């Protein structure tokens, strides 16, 4: 077994590195740059029942060591994703984690049921934490009861393991984590973006047309690491960590904090080869640290 391999419910990953949802589309663009089979997995863009156009532009704004986005879950809708995007990805030897979003429980359930039966979809990621849509998304992610219920409803129909994606915009992230676990979640992914704003000093108006946006990138990394640490200590299901990862020590640190694998979002816009670069750099860094197998990193901070 390769020293980079990790096991997660539904997923045997060649390595613990995958692009985060929304930062990699359905893989077509990055496939121009490198072989997607190299990746541990791919978290594809959020899929909703109907196609969505998303929010007006500007949809992104730079912030110190971070960015705000309010894409608004633009996607071609379940039908196209299932008949066009996911089959296209079949040519690569890489498990797909399908990010599922909606406005009501019924939407989530409908998307989950159908998408979980696509052959290369090995897990679902329930997006209950998108801050950029008026209904649905984050409202599900801030109330433990609602989060637990939704998880239960989706678990009932899903043909593959279900990961719940947690919002950092909460007082106690472990409370939502435990509710998702109690609802039957097979794993957790975190963090989604922090709600933020930027203003234009000339007009006094928000720069993002939507007003608020989701903050991501290196700026949020300390918050993400803290939440991965807290959550992984308070549940017994595995965690996929993300939030500001851009170099190999970030991978090491998220795993030390308690993540079994990691996802890379914003960094794909800065270094378009970041995922394969991290995968290549990891063995050498493990050597330097005197660590034989990447799994030895997982939750190392809890033991000391």
């Amino acid at each position, binding site marked *: 077994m390769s020293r980079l391999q990790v096991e997660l419910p539904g997923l045997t990953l060649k390595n613990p590195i995958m692009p985060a949802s*929304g*930062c*990699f*589309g359905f893989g*077509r*663009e*990055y496939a*121009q*740059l490198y072989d997607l089979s190299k990746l541990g997995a791919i978290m594809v863009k959020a899929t909703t029942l109907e196609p969505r*156009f*998303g929010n007006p*532009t*500007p*949809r*992104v*704004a*730079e*912030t*110190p*060591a*971070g*960015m705000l*986005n309010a*894409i608004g879950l*633009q996607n*071609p809708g379940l039908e196209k994703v299932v008949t066009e995007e996911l089959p296209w990805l079949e040519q690569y030897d890489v498990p797909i984690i399908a990010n599922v979003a909606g406005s009501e429980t019924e939407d989530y359930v409908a998307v989950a049921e159908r998408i979980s039966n696509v052959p290369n979809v090995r897990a679902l990621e329930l997006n209950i934490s998108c801050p950029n849509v008026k209904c649905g998304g984050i409202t599900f992610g801030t109330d433990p009861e609602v989060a637990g219920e939704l998880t239960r409803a989706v678990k009932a129909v899903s043909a593959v393991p279900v990961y719940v994606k947690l919002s950092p915009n909460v007082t106690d992230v472990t409370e939502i984590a435990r509710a998702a676990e109690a609802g039957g979640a097979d794993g957790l992914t975190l963090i989604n973006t922090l709600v933020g704003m930027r203003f234009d000093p000339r007009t006094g108006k928000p720069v993002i047309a939507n007003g608020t946006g989701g903050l991501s*990138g*290196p*700026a949020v990394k300390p918050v993400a690491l803290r939440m991965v640490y807290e959550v992984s200590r308070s549940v017994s299901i595995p965690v996929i960590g993300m939030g500001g990862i*851009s170099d190999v020590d970030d991978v090491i640190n998220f795993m030390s904090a308690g993540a079994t694998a990691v996802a890379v979002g*914003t960094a*794909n*816009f*800065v*270094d*378009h*080869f970041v995922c394969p670069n991290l995968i290549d750099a990891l063995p050498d860094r493990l050597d330097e640290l005197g660590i034989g197998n990447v799994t030895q990193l997982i939750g190392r901070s809890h033991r000391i």
Partner: protein
Amino acid sequence: MIRNERMKVAEQREIARNIYELVLEGKLADEIREPGRFIHVKAGETMDPLLRRPISIADYGNGRITLIYRAEGCGTRLISEKSPHGTADVLGPLGNGFPVRAAAPGTKALLVGGGIGVPPLYGLSKQLKEAGVEPVHVLGFQSDDVVFYEEKFSRLGETHIATVDGSRGTKGFVTDVLAKLGHEFGVYYSCGPVPMLKAVAEGMAGTEGYLSFEERMGCGIGACFACVCHTDSNDRGYVKVCSDGPVFKAGVVTI
């Protein structure tokens, strides 16, 4: 092929107030087949500023590309500090450029640029000329001190300058010049701020035209949906400026 390359800084100089001409050397230059495409430049070496900056390729050839940009915010100011010892981390070439073939040899083509929308028209004009098309340039700037490349454009064809404050050429906007131009054009090309593009497209209605757009970008390659514009011309209802554009046929993008 899209490359990510540490290109060598061959030259960098300020050619007008806060306007820089940067010449980069590397393999990426050989991948460019069309004027009007752009590259995505990492401004600094740390996490702030974070995002790459999209800059049009003003000219290319012989293993080099020329960029012309305004040092404005934190990113472009850092780029302007790159000196011939150094390198620049560049992703590109990206997007789709101006179709040179849309202009028939022997006809006149109109090129209208505003401010930092002027640079990609230079490479376009050179190629039109080579293809036997006669380029006519109408270039708008804020004021005399930020005008650049007037002579270079003049060498390629008839060139009109407009400045908002009248400190060089016609006082006013490019549309003030257009109104007085007596030519027949087979096609027009334009790059600049949206209000200008809009005015040009209205003034040239009926003539085939190509417009280059700007939009805030994340990835620059079509993956993040940051740079989406509405369109009625396809059934998705949108185009992405970074990968479907930045150049679109007039009428495609709702402005």
